[in-house]
């Protein structure tokens, strides 16, 4: 029986290749989009869950009150883990994991040419591999990190520094302010892509007390904030509150006046609910889009299968007369649906495998291929398959099994009014989704363009930022001089950090606001204003104002923050004990994410010579290089690199364009925009395919009517219009429904932005026109074909 059903389903599929292809292909495309997104979302949600004890690994956090702002800190004093472990039986172990916040220079001592600047260098306690579930390829879990100056490499790094040679026992030199020699004791497997911790180099934390840079981090034994991100493993997740209380008590014991509030946050929450949500900002929108696309594909399937049902009516009648019960007919169509869905699913798996790398490179995401076999993801897939089978089989089975055999056998069965209406609703729904996505996509794109074009108070184009490490040292002056001599370079400037990448935070007070208040500080030289195009509100009278002792320049936002007078020149700000006189005011410019209003900022201006030697050379800073607009950029960069390596061969040349740095702040929006682009195409494709198949079907059904009309003298154009108009009405309706929907959602979305584009009426018009053109093209093809057919043929077959 089952064999018979599968056979007939297959033969039907082969017989109606086009409609079969559209039905299955549409579903496959929808499923592919859906699985890709689910794959991405499942991956995002699975962060850090691969650790065996992931449900009871917590990071210690403290909420600190600083000048009125409440700030979360996750770096604890070296003793915090141990103290908590001793004080609370609910803590089974603790771990300190300290990351270098600046790149270190690593050299293979036996091959001095193998030298790179490395960002992911961390120090961990000896129990690291016991605490987390990272796996060692080489080395003993218990002892790899027990001795000072031991180093574990990731597989990739072992390859990078040692090739195929066995790295165990080899020495790497690590250059910070001083240089240290580490012995490689182990190689760990590369961290999975869903790990929020991904050290490439893991050094024993016991090395730190003897490293000059870290000596001071071990001075105090008190329970308080410090330099070490600290993790605790509890015996039981329910003990969280008790441990938090213990930590609070320990903090009070250490310092009776401490007001910091300690808490624990689950490691697995870090990725999605962490402080930096820019990567995951739209993680909630993505599943919604996936559901929409799936819905589109299902609706398409539904509408096509009711259409097909009409062609199958005779078969059903025959089966019933030959003894089939309603149940067995329903079962047959369920089998058929299941078969089609399985085909679609297999096709979508194939599509996924092919398109996956492309899709993720588009979204700028890296996910281990092995995650495809992740248990949760497979479970989701199975659920998706089950749901699709149920959803697609339900309606056809129900409708077709109810066909009355006598009616069906008498003549080829005309569609019932109800089914006709259902198909109309389906087409409308499809186009509502497609058009709404199209409108939203256009608006997202406009918003991105708009934000990129916003006047942020800086001239971002034609500036490259070169980061220098302290390895440049005293060479910074000749280096800068040579760069300035390049013909394309118009000016250079110095600051401690690249713009958009960070700043120092000082505490300042004014007469009007005596409480210490957090204030971002830029240490720059006097060319900063010219090079970055910062505009003056009040320019200092004295050209050489920076030669005065400790002047400060503030922006407009700082005036209001410190409640200074309308012309604050001559007033002063107090930074701890040092008083600085305000000599100038600049107009506000953005130096952080555009979402936040412009913060107050103070600029400490140094003379060019002083800034070059101190900021750029000694501590390592950022050199802004403005070049002429039409310059040959690659050539300029290679010249700069040559100069750079001449003066600092220890650290690789690193640069970024200012406008690129600005753009990276919109990564999540950009990603959203890419996803929308893709899904607009998919939605249009599915909707278009569905419409095409329906038009074919409708032309088939009305063959006789068209034949009669033609015999009576209707022209091809009249017949085409007659057939097309039915569909175009639906598209117009879809435009009317989709426009306000899209407007509403986009309006809400734009509320999150400080700078927002206006939604133009022509977006709706354009999207509508686009959909209409697509519809006319698909429908008229079939309509013209039908209108051109010889009426004698169609009338004879009746």
């Amino acid at each position, binding site marked *: *029986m089952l064999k018979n059903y599968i056979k007939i389903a297959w033969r*039907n599929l082969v*017989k109606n290749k086009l409609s079969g292809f559209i039905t299955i292909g549409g579903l496959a495309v929808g499923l592919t989009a859906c699985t890709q997104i689910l794959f991405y979302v499942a991956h995002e949600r699975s962060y850090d869950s691969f650790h065996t004890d992931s449900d009871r690994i917590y990071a210690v956090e403290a909420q600190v009150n600083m000048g009125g702002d409440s700030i979360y800190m996750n770096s604890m004093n070296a003793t915090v883990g141990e103290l908590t472990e001793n004080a609370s039986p609910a803590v089974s172990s603790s771990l300190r994991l300290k990351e270098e916040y600046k790149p270190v220079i690593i050299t293979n001592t036996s091959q001095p040419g193998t030298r790179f600047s490395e960002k992911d260098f961390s120090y961990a306690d000896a129990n690291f591999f016991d605490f987390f579930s990272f796996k060692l390829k080489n080395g003993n879990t218990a002892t790899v990190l027990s001795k000072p100056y031991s180093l574990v490499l990731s597989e990739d790094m072992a390859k990078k520094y040692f090739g195929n040679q066995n790295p165990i026992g080899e020495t790497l030199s690590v250059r910070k302010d001083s240089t240290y020699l580490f012995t490689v004791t182990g190689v760990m497997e590369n961290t999975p892509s869903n790990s929020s911790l991904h050290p490439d180099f893991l050094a024993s934390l016991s090395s730190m007390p003897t490293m000059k840079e870290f000596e001071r981090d071990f001075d105090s034994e008190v329970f308080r904030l410090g330099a070490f991100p600290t993790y605790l493993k509890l015996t039981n997740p329910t003990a969280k509150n008790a441990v938090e209380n213990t930590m609070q008590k320990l903090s009070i014991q250490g310092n009776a006046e401490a007001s910091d509030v300690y808490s624990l946050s689950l490691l697995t929450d870090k990725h999605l609910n962490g402080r930096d949500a820019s990567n995951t900002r739209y993680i909630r929108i993505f599943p919604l889009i996936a559901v929409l696309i799936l819905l589109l594909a299902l609706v398409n399937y539904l509408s096509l299968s009711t259409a097909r049902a009409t062609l199958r009516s*005779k*078969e059903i009648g*025959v089966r019933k*007369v030959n*003894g089939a019960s309603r149940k067995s007919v329903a079962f047959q169509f369920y089998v058929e649906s299941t078969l089609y869905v399985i085909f679609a699913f297999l096709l979508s798996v194939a599509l996924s495998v092919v398109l996956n790398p492309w899709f993720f490179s588009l979204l700028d995401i890296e996910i281990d291929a092995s995650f495809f076999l992740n248990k949760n993801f497979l479970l989701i897939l199975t659920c998706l398959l089950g749901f699709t089978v149920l959803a697609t089989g339900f309606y056809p089975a129900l409708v077709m099994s109810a066909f009355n055999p006598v009616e069906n056998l*008498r003549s080829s069965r005309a569609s019932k009014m109800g089914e006709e209406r259902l198909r109309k609703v389906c087409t409308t729904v499809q186009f509502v989704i497609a058009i709404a996505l199209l409108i939203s996509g256009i608006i997202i794109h406009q918003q991105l363009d708009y934000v990129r074009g916003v006047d942020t108070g800086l001239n971002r184009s034609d500036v490259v930022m070169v980061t220098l490490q302290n390895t440049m040292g005293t060479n910074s002056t000749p280096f800068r001089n040579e760069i300035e001599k390049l013909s394309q370079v118009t000016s250079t400037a110095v600051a401690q950090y690249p713009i958009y990448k960070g700043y120092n935070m000082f505490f300042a007070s004014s007469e009007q606001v005596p409480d210490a208040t957090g204030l971002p500080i830029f240490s720059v030289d006097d060319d900063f204003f010219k090079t970055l195009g910062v505009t003056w509100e009040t320019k200092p009278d004295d050209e050489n104002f920076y030669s005065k002792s400790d002047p400060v320049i503030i922006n407009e936002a700082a005036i209001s923050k410190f409640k200074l007078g309308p012309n604050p020149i001559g007033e002063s700000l107090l930074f701890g004990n040092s008083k600085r006189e305000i000599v100038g005011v600049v107009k506000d410019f953005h130096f952080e994410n555009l979402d936040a209003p412009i913060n107050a900022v103070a600029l400490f201006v140094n003379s060019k010579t002083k800034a070059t030697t101190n900021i750029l050379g000694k501590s390592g800073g950022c050199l802004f290089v403005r070049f002429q607009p039409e310059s040959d950029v690659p050539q300029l960069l290679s010249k700069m690199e040559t100069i750079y390596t001449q003066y600092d061969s220890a650290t690789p040349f690193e640069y970024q364009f200012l406008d690129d740095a600005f753009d990276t702040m919109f990564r999540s929006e950009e990603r959203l925009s890419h996803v929308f682009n893709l899904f607009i195409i998919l939605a249009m494709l599915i909707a278009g395919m569905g419409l095409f198949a329906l038009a074919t079907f409708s032309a088939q059904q009305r063959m006789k009517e068209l034949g009669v009309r033609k015999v009576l003298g209707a022209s091809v154009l009249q017949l085409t219009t007659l057939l097309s108009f039915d569909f175009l009405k639906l598209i117009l309706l879809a435009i009317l429904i989709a426009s306000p929907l899209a407007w509403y959602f986009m309006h809400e979305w734009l509320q999150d932005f400080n700078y927002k584009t206006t939604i133009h009426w022509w977006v709706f018009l354009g999207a509508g026109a686009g959909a209409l053109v697509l519809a006319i093209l698909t429908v008229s093809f079939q309509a013209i074909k039908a209108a051109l057919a010889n009426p004698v043929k169609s009338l004879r077959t009746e």
Partner: protein
Amino acid sequence: MLLQLNHIYKWVKQGGKRVFLLNDISLDVEEGEFISIMGPSGSGKSTLLNVIGMLDEFQEGEYIFDGEPVHSLKEKQRSKLYKEYIGFVFQAYHLIDELTVYENIETPLLYKNIKSSERKALVADMLDRFNIVGKKDLFPAQLSGGQQQLVGIARALIAKPKLILADEPTGNLNSKQGEEIMELFKELNAEGVTIIQATHSESNAAYGNRIIHLLDGSKQLQP
């Protein structure tokens, strides 16, 4: 007595008026009879066959089939009854286009949950009997009209029905093919199968041992 119709009425409403499709039809059919129903288009031949075949309902009257009162049975019991005892043959053959000759003949057996091996034997017998063994793997579209109708009859017979209902079985065939089919019916009848056929043609009707004339849904006296 195989079946008995007592004062059957069937009508549809058109503009508030009843239009009678069957008007006071009474009919007794004994086992082993071969009955021809004659009448012009629209006289109610097909409707009467559908009512006898339990595919269609009627508004008034009694229908007793093999001792069972069909008019008071539920849908499910009714379909069980006709599946068991009645085979249908159609003017347009109504074979399933996507199934082969073999599979078409096999279909009724599938719905009776007969075992695979037994099905094979039954279908093979039938193919043999109608001399179409060589055509068993062909699809309906590859056969002539007469051959398709042979398959249709084979399918109707496979479940060993007591009654065959044939609605214009030769309507789409040329006269030679038509004659062959009628001869076949005659043979089947001689083997004890009860047959009721609807037809236009006097000569085909003559194969039956009783002729019923219908006009506008009413039984006519012999002209």
